Structure formats: structure tokens, C-alpha cells
């Protein structure tokens, strides 16, 4: 459905979109790579499971969320495509395994809780 503009610079940056290899011009966003890959959708929403693809392309609508280089829920329209980038489909909410995240929080004093509670 989408084609690069005729005046676009040559597609030299190779990325992976959900298993397909796509070339985009330097400076293009990860979301642009998704559109050029011709995918009908890139994720299913967490609440209703309906299909979504990049939409506003300017960081507002959050429809283009994708797993990029292993990090889920990234706004692909706000991220420049880089050589070798892996843009993956996301199904529902991201998964986090609390037991599997190492405690790497630097030590800092405990901030006071909200007082009162009345």
C-alpha cells in the first residue's frame, strides 16, 4: 500500500520487520519500515485484542507500539531505523517477569511516604 516517494534518498538501511528484511532510506523511522514491509498490522491491543498498525507517525496516537531490539512498547514512529534493527510484532500487553529482573536499583534514601492518609 505504501511506496517511498520518488525523491526519497536511496534505501540503504536494512532492518528486520517481523521476520522480513526491509530497506529504508537513512533517517526513516522504524514505523516507516513497518509500512514499507506491507504488514496489515503490527500488534494486537492489550484490552480488546484488535489489530493495530502505525497511524499518526508523529508520536501522538501510540498505535505503532512494537518490540524493537528486544524492548517492548516502543513508539516505532519516534525511532530512527538503524542497520540490523529488529522490529517485532507485539501481542497484547508486554510481559514482565518480576522474579526475573535483577535488583539493580542504586541505593538512595527512602523518600518519606505520603503523610496522613485521612
Amino acid at each position, binding site marked *: 500500500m505504501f511506496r517511498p516517494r520518488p525523491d526519497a534518498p536511496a534505501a540503504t538501511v536494512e532492518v528486520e520487520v517481523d521476520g522480513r528484511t526491509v530497506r529504508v532510506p537513512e533517517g526513516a523511522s522504524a514505523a516507516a519500515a513497518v509500512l514499507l514491509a506491507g504488514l496489515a498490522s503490527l500488534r494486537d491491543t*492489550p*484490552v480488546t485484542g484488535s489489530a493495530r498498525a502505525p497511524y499518526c507517525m508523529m508520536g501522538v496516537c*501510540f498505535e505503532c507500539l512494537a518490540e524493537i531490539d528486544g524492548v*517492548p*512498547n516502543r513508539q516505532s514512529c519516534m525511532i530512527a531505523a538503524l542497520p540490523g534493527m529488529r522490529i517485532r510484532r507485539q501481542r*497484547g*500487553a*508486554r*510481559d*514482565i*517477569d*518480576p*522474579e526475573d*529482573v*535483577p*535488583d*539493580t*536499583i542504586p541505593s*538512595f534514601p*527512602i*523518600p*518519606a*511516604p*505520603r*503523610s*496522613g*492518609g*485521612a
Partner: protein
Amino acid sequence: MTQFDAIVIGGGLVGAAIGYGLVRDGLRVAIVDEGDIAFRASRGNFGLVWVQSKGLGAPHYQRWTRLSAEEWPALAAELGERTGISVGLEQPGGLQLCLGEEELEKRRAMMEQMRREAGNFGFEYRMLDRSELAGILPGLGASVAGASWTPYDGHANSLNLLHALHKGFGERGGTYLPGRTVIEAHAAPHDFRVEFAGETIVAPKIVLAAGLGNAKLAPLFGLLAPVRPQRGQILVTERTNRIWPLPLGSLRQTQEGTIMLGSSEEDVGFDTGQKPEIMRNIARRAVLCFPWIAELQIVRAWAALRVMPPDGLPIYDESEEFPGAFTANCHSGVTLAGAHANAFAPMVAAGALDPMMMPFSAKRFDVSAAA
């Protein structure tokens, strides 16, 4: 000039719950509301139905909060049936996490005082130590010493609640008048007239539920509502798989999967801006409780203003000078929605507040009465 049985000033959670209760009792009701520029705690709150910390030194407030928590399931079910909107109520009880032994001991003392003050009414609570907690909450931070638990707490989707109350109000014939600013109000016993630009409405009853706006409105009706704004800030993470089986006071995971991080208290007047130091402290407490939260992206953050009476306790009152005028002021419009719709509104419909409401009167701020 349009005649109603009751006018409710304020279309936030408090006004909408009362208005909903009044139309359900068969009254012809107008809810008068500001526009989208209103300071609207109903759209900035945390969404807790929270009982365990309410009313230390003021057992009447604990009872009122408990009454509301008990009414919540019926209200949620009724709204769901009548409006098709799920308010997402879950009441599995709640945990308040304590960082460090000092916080835990303070909490233990507070909960024990709550139990003592509850007397025969009862107050069920438990203190959980770290090892017990770790079995319920995966990925617990090393600084968490323990938590308090009561069975009364819960949470809900407060935006859906506001929507459902408005929809239910409208479907039962209530008249919603948004975008109005009260220009003039005339009070006489059982005869109230409120004027806006080119429009007048009258009713024998009026309920002031205008949040922070009540401070200026109340004296026009022989009432007192010395509420001030108290700012609270909230951070919200991206959506994740469901992790916690119950709300954790200043932390909760919504049904949609976002994790909300609170809470804070600031006295900064009518300023809804955000402050990095406060946001940092909220985030720090959250990651001390659960280090894995640091892996999550923050996708939204905002500040809103609580409607805070001088002693932090709600104010409910009826005017002696102008019978038929009532006021409701609180900073817990979500928690108290059950009480407002199912207990307070029927009192207004009946024409007088129940004696159980007397301790909530603003007379408690009267220096000569207190002396």
C-alpha cells in the same frame, strides 16, 4: 425559569453520585457543571476504593468509608445493568507496603489504634511480614519490611464511574447543565434560585458538590466549606501482564494493565503543574518496593488537586438558615461514591441528614463551639 425538585451544583464524582441517587429516588434534578477547564479531581484521581487508612482519630469517618465500600458492589452492578458501562470494581482487600522497620512499626501502631477506635463496630486488619508478602507479590524489593492488610479495600476505573453516573443520571431523566458558571444565587428556606447567563433555575432543595468551588458557594446558602486545594501527582507505566492480585495503596495495576504510581501531598494553591522532585520520589518509592518497575516506561504523568477540608475529614452539612440546602465536600470521590449515591442522596431526598452525619458538620471549625 425552570423548576426542579433539587439542584446539584457540581458534576464531578461527588455531584454526579448524589444527582444519580436523587433521580433514582424519583426527584427531578438538575446537575449544574462547569466546562472542561474546571479543576476536576474526578479526572485526576488514583481510582482506589480505599478504606484501611481512613479515619484515624475520627471513627465516624472510618464507618462512613466502610459503609461506602459496602455499597460499592451494588452501585457498580446497578450502573453496569442500567448503562452498560463496567466500572471495573475489584474489592479483594488491599495492602499498604512499608519501607523499612520504622515505617512498618508506625503502620502497626496506626492500624491498632484504628481497631481500638472502631470499638464494637470492628476493624479487621493484619500486618504481613516480608516473607508472607513475598509469597503474594513477586519481585519484592529488599527494603520492603512488611505491609498492612484489610479486607475492605479495592479499586475501580474512576473515569468509567464518572461516565456511568452521568449516563445513568441522564437515562433516568436528570437534566445536565454543563458549561455554566453561577452568576447569582438566592436562598430562602426550601426555595433556591440559581442564575447563569440568561438562565434561571429554581428548586426547594440544593446540594453544593462543587469541590473546591464550594468554599465560595457555601456562604451564599448559610453553609461553610473551608476547603483548600492539595496537589497530588501520579505516574503511569506502560501496560504489562497482570502482576498484583490486589491494590497496594500508592501502587495499583489497572484492569487494562497500566501500573499507577502515587502519591504525594503539596500545598501549592490552584497550580496543577508537576515537579520533578516529587515525581522522582514517587518513582523511587515504587522501585524500592518493586525493582522491576524500573524496567517499565512511564507513559503518562499528571497532577490534580484534592478537595481538602482543614482537618482532612469530609464535610457534610445542612443549612440551618436555609433548610433544604446541603453541602458535600471530600477528597475521596471514588471511595465515597457508594455512600453518596446510596446513603447521602436518600437523606437529601428525605429532607434531612441522618444524625450519624452530625460529626461531619462544619460546625466543628467554629472556634466558639470548639472552645
